[in-house]
């Protein structure tokens, strides 16, 4: 047996040298970026007292603001309503778009390309830009926020649904065509049943995403809780702000749980029926 020897470049000492180089270079890059951005961790300690002060002013959170001021309650409802409408209308639209854009259900390749293009534009357009435009066109308030969510949901989920439709199993579809069905019937009886579970799952996910987005949009004029939080902070009503933030966390968590339960129930029924 020939004497096997260790590969030079795999020797532990070589590996160690390479590891050191990697860490040095990465550290250098990180420090360079930090300096470029004026990111100075020392600030944490020198300016940190501002954070502590802020915390001091925020605690204890003024939970009464939640029920004292009726417009806060309305804002909460507005945020939920925005998310709901955005998901429902956006989701319905996304479904239509998806059927137009999917290879196996599109009426014509031209329509397919057009819709794919539309969806990719909507998807890449940041919600920030959309809300700014819609606020100018439709005024401040939840309406602009709702439309923003509709459009962004369209873009985001149009692609997801279109992909799901294209990834449907071809055997059941062929079977339906084989017995003489036309395209619409094939869609109704073999494609739609296959995509419903993922459609429903995605719808719930969309609601979660939209709920968080609705809060963010409020800051730019979209109304709802986001707007209230921003106002509270601007007017230095910090304990109010904390109360609203804590409530927001609660809201998102609660709706997440509700979504999970509802989705599990609906999916179970779908598979049973």
């Amino acid at each position, binding site marked *: 047996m020939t004497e096997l020897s260790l590969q030079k470049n*795999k*020797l*532990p000492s070589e590996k*160690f040298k390479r590891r050191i180089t990697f860490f040095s270079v990465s550290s250098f890059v990180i420090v360079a970026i930090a300096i470029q951005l004026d990111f100075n961790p020392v600030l944490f300690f020198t300016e940190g007292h501002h954070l502590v002060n802020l915390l001091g002013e925020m605690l204890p959170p003024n939970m009464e603001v939640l029920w004292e001021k009726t417009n806060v309650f309305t804002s909460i409802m507005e945020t939920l309503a925005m998310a709901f409408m955005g998901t429902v209308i956006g989701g319905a639209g996304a479904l239509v778009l998806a059927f137009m854009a999917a290879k196996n259900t599109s009426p014509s390749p031209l329509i397919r390309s057009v819709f794919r293009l539309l969806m990719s534009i909507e998807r890449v357009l940041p919600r920030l830009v959309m809300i700014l435009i819609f606020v100018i066109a439709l005024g401040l308030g939840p309406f602009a926020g709702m439309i923003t969510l509709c459009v962004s949901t369209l873009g985001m989920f149009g692609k997801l649904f279109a992909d799901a439709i294209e990834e449907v199993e071809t055997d059941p579809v062929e079977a339906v065509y084989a017995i003489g069905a036309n395209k619409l019937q094939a869609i109704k009886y073999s494609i739609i049943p296959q995509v419903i579970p993922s459609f429903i799952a995605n719808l719930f996910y969309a609601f979660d995403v939209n709920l968080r987005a609705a809060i963010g949009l409020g800051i730019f004029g979209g109304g709802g809780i986001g707007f209230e939080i921003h106002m509270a902070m601007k007017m230095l009503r910090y304990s109010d702000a904390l109360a609203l933030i804590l409530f927001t966390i609660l809201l998102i968590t609660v709706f997440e749980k509700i979504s999970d339960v509802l989705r599990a129930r609906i999916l179970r029924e779908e598979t049973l029926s």
Partner: protein
Amino acid sequence: MIEVKDVVKQLPNGKQLLKGITFQAKKGDFIGILGPSGAGKTVTMRCLNGLTQPTSGHIYLRSNGKTNDLTCCKGKALRELRQKIGIVFQGFNLVKRLSVIENVMIGRLGQINPLRSLTYGFTNAEAEEALHALEKVKIGHLAYRKVASLSGGEQQRVAIARAIFQKPYMLLADEPIANLDPSNAKKIMKLLKPLAKDMPIIGVFHQPEIAAKYCNRIIAIKEGKVVYDGDTNLSEDLLVEIYGEELQQIEETSTSQEQLVYS
């Protein structure tokens, strides 16, 4: 030398898994532990390895005039003792994404300075020794392959190399050939047998024929007790006594394997 004395393992609900296991092992022993399922073979293995603490009894490890009791240790002291116990498993249990030689060197993780393992890692000298260990199990040429790309038989060899790299007092084997096809099983047993010269090897096997062929001593455990401790001439009656009804199942599954092993 290992001395297992009256080891009892009782579950919190009162069930006794081991009812007083006693035996000894020394250099040169290649012991095969047999017994029906649920008899307590794996529990014994886990006690010998320090994974489980017996409820009562002692496990003495004697080497170079020093005696350590595995059952009395916890935490750091236990880790120190476990450094010197090698074990190979049914499922090989290697770190799949690391290379073969790195897996072997992991064997000494317990023995090197923790600070060093965190920063520098292993030394070149240790890498050389690991390569020797791999050559001993005849897979030196696979040293830099990722474990995930190896076959079952090859992976088990890596596991054995890892164990002997530890320079342990004893080598344990928990059903080492159960996941291997008959020809690889044979090769592994052939590999293990000469290692017994340096340290006692205690292995659990579910096939009595294989144990009988390669081991030089058989210990049979039934219902938590040692019912046989002697040479490898296992008569039919003895097997029936040990296994009871299971014997038929074992014989049925073992016939084809047996043929390959003996051929």
